[in-house]
Each structure stands twice: as structure tokens, then as C-alpha cells.
């Protein structure tokens, strides 16, 4: 029943060692957002919070532009990024719609039709 051996899956991130290394600082910052005080510190001064964790320019730009696909590309892991997104009240549906390049309503409609296949 093992039907394919190709590891690449279109539109899908396999978060392995290379991305884990590349995104470590970014993910560490996002992990810190489990604590309310850290979420508030980020809200107060986003730039210095990013600097404290040593994000790269690419990662800081992606944070600044709230761009999830760019954050994934920069080594972000979705489970930690979700905590960052929560600061702005963004749900997984908002994030999904953004990555798909559609409105949240369109995204919800796609899900209703068991979309994406």
C-alpha cells in the first residue's frame, strides 16, 4: 500500500533539520508568546522584541508584513507561528485564507466543499 516514495508534496512544508536550524530564533520568539507578558512586550515594541531574539532581516520583514508564507520560508514552524498570529486575533482560518490568497469567506466555502483536493 506504500504508493509513492517521492518526499516532496506540493504546497506543503516538511519541517526538518534544515528549516529547524534556519528558523530557530524565529520559532523561539514565537514559543515565548505562550506567556501573556511576552505577547504584551511584543505589542509594545515589536522591533526591539524581534531584535532581542536575533531574527534575521528576512524574518523581521516577514513578521512586519504579517506574511505567513514568507515566515514558513524563513524557517517558521506553524505551531509556533500560530501563537504569534494569535496576538493579532488571527485564527487558523485567517492564516489559511492568507496562504491560499483568498478571502476568509472563500476559504470557508472551500472547506465546506471539502476543498483542496
Amino acid at each position, binding site marked *: *500500500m506504500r504508493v509513492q516514495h517521492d518526499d516532496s508534496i506540493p504546497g*506543503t*512544508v516538511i519541517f526538518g533539520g534544515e528549516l529547524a536550524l534556519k528558523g530557530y530564533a524565529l520559532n523561539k520568539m514565537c514559543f515565548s508568546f505562550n506567556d501573556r507578558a511576552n505577547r504584551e512586550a511584543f505589542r509594545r515594541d515589536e522591533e526591539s522584541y524581534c531584535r532581542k531574539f536575533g531574527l534575521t532581516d528576512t524574518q523581521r520583514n516577514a513578521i512586519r508584513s504579517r506574511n505567513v508564507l514568507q515566515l514558513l520560508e524563513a524557517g517558521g*514552524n506553524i505551531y509556533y*507561528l500560530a501563537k504569534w498570529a494569535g496576538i493579532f486575533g488571527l485564527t487558523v482560518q485567517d492564516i489559511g485564507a492568507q496562504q491560499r490568497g483568498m478571502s476568509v469567506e472563500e476559504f470557508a466555502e472551500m472547506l465546506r466543499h471539502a476543498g483542496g483536493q
Partner: protein
Amino acid sequence: MATIVGAIATSHIPAIGRAMERNLENEPYWKPFFDGYAPVRRWIQDVEPDVAVVVYNDHGLNFFLDKMPTFAVGAAPEYHNADEGWGLSVTPPYPGFPELSWHLIESLVSEAFDITMCQEVLVDHGFTVPLSLLWGRESRSVRTLPVCINTVQFPYPSPARCLMLGRAMARAIESFDDDSRVVILGTGGLSHQLEGKRAGFLNPDFDRLCMNKIVNEPDELARYSVQDLIRFCGSQGVEFLNWLVMRGAVPGAVEEKHRNYHVPISNTAGATMILEKCGEALFASERG
């Protein structure tokens, strides 16, 4: 010896917890999902488990990328939930069962499963939402034992390895010298994908195949690679690994007593199943 009464598989996403906090169970969007749990709660009342082994995955509350165990087993008298960062309210602590935990740990390691032992572990929605769904948010009528599977950082354990882990857990639990009645929870899934351009991917055909095969042909599912699973059920649908551990942990044949499947619940295919261990009626009459 302890008895394994069966298994319950269930979705665990935070949106379910939020819906329960806001009493939305009977709203049209949620009703087809929540209605699927009335038979599960009745089954729990009939079968009376007093221990729940909860197979779940952490989503970045307890474990960070600095140290990421493949398999982690809780061994604490009590497990705490905490702020996950996006608004789900924190639940009261859950009683543990350290004696069973250490027996499980010793037995697993003796069978070459080199698991991580945790005397402190924060349990996230993957653990708390199923317990709220099945027993209620405040009820603490079962002792709990968390078993956490890595689905955050590659490489993940293979489906075959997860099924084997479950089978080793069954041998451990059934050799525990007391009269506990243990139910195994497999949480998460079914198909869904949160990240990338394929975000929102769902695959009901594959989900149904998984639900059919997991009953008494789990070895067929264990032949998939992790990448196969991700391809067919999405990068978070891979939480089906938890279901495979769960199925392995109920030895021998099981009877499917109930299933509910509803798409979509948030970004996911919502699902629950009861797999009762065959011969359980005998155990029930014995405890008469």
C-alpha cells in the same frame, strides 16, 4: 491485572474547546459534530473506565525545538494546562497515575522503546479538549496518563513504529497489578493542513479508509510512510499517528461501537470512534 476496555478516537482542535466555552454545541455549525459525542459519553458510563491513557501531540506549549522527544510519557501525580497564547481558557489540573506511568515506562524501555520520562509536562489542547468532550471540562473522574508523539519536527516516528508502540503499551498495561479499567484515547485528526499553499486540504475518502481499516486491519495502515500520510491527509492530518498508537494499545480484535465524521470543523475533518475490546462483556459481568 488492569483491563483495557477499549479506545476512543477523537478530534482535539482548539476551536472545539472554544465552542464548548461559549455553549455553541447546538448551533447549526457545531451540532452535527457535538451530536456524535452523546453515544461516546453513554459508552463511558456503561463501561466505567477509571484511567485514561491519552495519546496526543504537543503543539508548542510544553516542548520546544531545543529538545524534541519522539515519544514522551508523563509520570506526574498531576498534569497542568497553561496559556497557549491564543485565547483558550486554562482548565483545572488533571490527576495522574504515577505508579502506572512508571510501570509503563519500565516496560516500554525493556522492549527497546527509548521514551522520554516527564515528571513535569504541560498538557495542551491535544489532551484537554478530548477530556472536556468526553468527561466534561471540570470533571476529574478518571486518572490520566499522557503519551505525547512528536508531530512538530521531522523526522516523525513511522506509522509502523507508532502501532508497535501501542502494542507494547498494551502489554505493559495488562501486566499492571491492580484492577484499573483503562481506556485509550487517540486524539487529533482527521485530515487537515494548516500551512503552505495547500492549507485547507481535506480528504474525506482517505479519512474513511483510515476509519475502516483502523478497526481490525491497522497493519495495512502501518505500511504507509509518514510522507504518504501527509500527502493523503495533510500535514496536521498526520496526527493519525496518535490513532495508530491508540489502536495498537487495544490488544486483539475490537468492535466498532460508534463513529461520527463531519466536514468541516474549522479547518479539519471532525471525527470520533469507539473501538471496544472484543470480549469486554465478559469482563463487565465478572465485575458484577
